[in-house]
């Protein structure tokens, strides 16, 4: 890779300066605003990106690995076996085992995937990938540049319902549109995809305009490479409306072949189960367990009970309240690194929060440490800015707002806002990776604000309406967050602060222009400088209060040797196996 990367260690130390590990020490109150190292109690060597693995290798139980299926409980069902038609984690968890992307992640660092190496030109408009040798798809076809180009060309040439953002959201997000964008399908932009050239084992992809989504986009699960043999069987003309059912081929095993360690065997819709089987000619280390079944179980309670009863061998998004009981019962709950942000937005549309002093007061009022210490999964930390510390561009010098209720009351009094009333929205029926049980978090913040003399009007909104309501600026305060797709600050900051929106309701051209400039900068190091500056500007402006970065927990049965856990929740299930009893 061309760009040099600062070591993890440096950033880890920087991160720990502002973070508190859940150790039960709750003394850090009333310290000054720009908290330095001395008033935090933390393990210096704890890496929030990717905590060290503590368990050693274990001897595999060969018989079990061949005969016993590994059953993984999932909170939701995948939407499609073809990742390009999806935008959700439930789908990607499955497709990542079957397909490979050009670039991959190790922890949060971009590493080679199907491409052993790549080059970009100075403008960032030409990306040349040198593919691995000897990679075969599940249908026996060999991987070459042509195969890569065939995939990208297919995606860019999607028509009809395929173009709808409800299906190919990520493609139109990265490439802005299609060869012939169809406004009727909800896509109006012009594609920046400018063709792909294959030459043996190299593929060169051109884009007409650089954005900071690259090269991250090449690591995204949606740009995984499907066998040309499979593509030949597809006609891509069976979806004419945005709400047409997804094509048959994406709903059942049979057509799609990838290069991953597993291949599709079956998708049983009535049981909500997807079965994968080891691919013996996989280019990397062969998968540990022969058969993996992803089986949906509705809620966290049921998942935990199923794991405890031995009905499943692992599950994701463990509720924070279940982590300790599971560990006590001998189950494994490896801590993921953090790669998300939960924030409290101060929406300025209604005007009340337009006063910087009030926003500042609220920020001092909120006890973020209590949230991290008592209701979020272990391994989380208080956030100081709108991105997790593992990203290039995270700043050590942003303004910080330590919990200080007295100062909050004072500031409110100075601003003449003693009898402040605020509408505070939170989502129901949902548990997001960055926000398990939003109501608990809401409860704590609401109490903090009440203690500071603010009258809180609780406004619960169903999750499906929540995004809409908060986007429209209907709530003065609301909780939301974001989990990163890949290692690029733009994936976080760009999500929120590109322009004036009703989502935030503030107008700060300095931030908007700075962001546009950073996003079009192809040099990652220069870009990182921009992000640092932007983070400092944003925290000065204080459009909202970043609350925490906390890893969603994943649990495994005692007899399983778990895979390395990923901050991006991109676990490689081929790494896990049943271990022999010791």
């Amino acid at each position, binding site marked *: 890779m061309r760009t040099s990367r600062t070591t993890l260690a440096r950033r880890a130390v920087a991160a720990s300066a502002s973070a508190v590990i859940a150790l039960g020490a709750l003394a850090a109150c009333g310290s000054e605003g720009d908290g330095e190292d001395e008033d935090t109690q933390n393990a210096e060597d704890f890496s929030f990106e990717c905590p060290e693995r503590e368990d050693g290798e274990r001897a595999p139980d060969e018989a079990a690995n061949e005969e016993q299926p590994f059953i993984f409980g999932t909170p939701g069902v995948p939407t499609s076996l073809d990742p390009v038609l999806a935008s959700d984690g439930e789908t990607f968890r499955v497709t990542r085992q079957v397909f490979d992307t050009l670039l991959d992640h190790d922890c949060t660092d971009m590493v080679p995937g199907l491409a052993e190496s790549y080059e970009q030109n100075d403008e960032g408009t030409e990306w040349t990938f040198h593919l691995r040798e000897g990679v075969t798809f599940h249908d026996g076809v060999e991987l070459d540049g042509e195969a890569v180009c065939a995939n990208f060309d297919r995606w860019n040439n999607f028509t009809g319902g395929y173009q*709808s953002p409800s299906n190919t959201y990520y493609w139109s997000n990265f490439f802005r549109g299609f060869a012939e964008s169809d406004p*009727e399908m909800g896509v109006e932009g012009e594609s920046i995809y400018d063709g792909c050239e294959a030459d043996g084992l190299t593929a060169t992809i051109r884009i007409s305009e650089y954005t900071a989504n690259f090269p991250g986009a090449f690591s995204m699960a949606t740009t995984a490479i499907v066998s040309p043999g499979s593509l030949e069987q597809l006609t891509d003309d069976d979806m004419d409306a945005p709400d047409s059912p997804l094509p048959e081929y994406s709903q059942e095993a049979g057509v799609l072949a990838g290069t991953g360690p597993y291949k599709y065997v079956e998708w049983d819709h*009535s049981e909500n189960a997807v079965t994968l089987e080891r691919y013996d000619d996989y280019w990397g280390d062969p998968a540990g367990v022969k058969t993996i079944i992803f089986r949906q179980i*509705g809620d966290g309670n*049921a998942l935990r009970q199923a794991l405890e009863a031995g009905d499943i061998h692992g599950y994701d998004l463990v509720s924070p309240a279940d982590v300790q009981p599971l560990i006590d019962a001998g189950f494994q709950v490896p801590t993921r690194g953090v790669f998300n942000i939960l924030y409290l937005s101060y929406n300025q549309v209604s005007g009340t929060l337009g006063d910087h002093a009030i926003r500042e007061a609220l920020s001092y009022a909120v006890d973020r440490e209590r949230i991290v210490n008592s209701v979020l999964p272990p391994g989380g930390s208080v956030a100081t800015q709108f991105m997790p510390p593992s990203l290039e561009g995270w700043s050590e010098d942003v303004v910080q707002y330590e919990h200080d209720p007295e100062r909050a009351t004072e500031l409110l009094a100075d601003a003449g806002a003693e009898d402040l009333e605020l509408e505070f929205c939170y989502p129901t*029926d949902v548990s997001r990776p960055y926000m398990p049980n939003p109501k608990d978090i809401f409860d704590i913040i609401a109490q903090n604000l009440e203690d500071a003399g603010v009258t809180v009007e609780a406004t619960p909104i169903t999750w499906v309406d929540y995004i809409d309501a908060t986007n429209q600026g209907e709530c003065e305060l609301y909780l939301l967050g*974001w989990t990163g797709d890949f290692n690029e600050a733009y994936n976080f900051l760009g999500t929120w602060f590109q322009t004036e929106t009703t989502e935030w309701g503030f107008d700060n051209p300095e931030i908007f222009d700075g962001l546009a400039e950073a996003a079009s900068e192809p040099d990652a190091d220069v870009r990182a400088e921009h992000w640092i500056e932007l983070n400092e500007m944003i925290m000065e402006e204080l459009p909202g209060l970043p609350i925490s970065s906390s890893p969603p927990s994943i649990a495994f049965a005692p007899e399983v040797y778990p895979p390395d856990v990923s901050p991006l929740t991109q676990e490689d299930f081929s790494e896990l196996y049943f271990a022999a009893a010791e």
Partner: protein
Amino acid sequence: MLRYTVKRLLQLVVALLGLSLLLFAWFKSLPGGPENRMLPDNATDQQREALREALGLDEPVWTQYGEFLGRAVRLDFGNSLSSGRPISTELADRLPATIELSLWAIAIAIGVGIPLGYLAARKRGTWLDFTAVSGSLIGICTPVFFLAAMLKVVFSQNLGWLPTAFRLTPGTDYTDVTGLRVLDGLITGEFDVAWNAAMHLILPAIALASIPLAVITRITRASVLEVLGEDYVRTADAKGLKAQTIRGRHVMKNAMLPVVTVIGLLLGSLFAGAVLTESVFSFGGVGSFVYAATTERDYPALMGFILVIAVSYVALNLIVDLSYGFLDPRVRVRS
């Protein structure tokens, strides 16, 4: 009789049309459309608006209703917003699970409830009667989801006797014949499958059976008591008929009539219980599908489902009523 049948049919069609219109208008008037469900968290407002237009959500409600009705008649309820698959397929896929669970629950409720109710009536005033009556009252008053959760905590989680979820251990090979797993296992001779499926059914079926069991016990007890007091039973007794004959021919036969009718009535509450039980036990039937559709505001799925249920209820209702008409001339006269 024909006139009566036609009249009832027409009334039902009108009622169903009304119901569908009401449902449709209701669902449409709600804030927050399906487009929110179809896009990721950070989609822009333009993307949302564009998708609304593309989905035809900006057309007049009447046009949308017409289209909806036209398709509904052909059993096409559109696609589920959460899975993207046709709703009719989703429902058809999951129906066997719910049917199997309900059959088991009803079997438990009848198998235990009738003998228990009968015994309670025969031994009126004893501890058995007291236990049966108070047990059934508590059964009615316990929230189904709480009972299901407690059963699971005790028998699966703590004792480890029974599985906590699913219809079969995932990865079990089975041959699908009727969709009812236990029956399939017996038909095809895969007895391990039948056993496996039966183990998975026990707890959910018990939880689901709790309310029907309580009701059937009480109704049986009440109607046996009533029949025992009837003159013809007393006459039979006085005639010196054998106790067994009296019980079999006179008491049980006559006491069963109200019980049988009430079992039909219970199908409604059974269904409500299935939504809760299936969601606790991840049973993968229609119940959990509907629950998911509710929380995710999967309107098309919810509407399709309510219509299917309403039509089948109304149809069953009609059959029952008509058969009453045949059996009992008084009904015909009254209407």
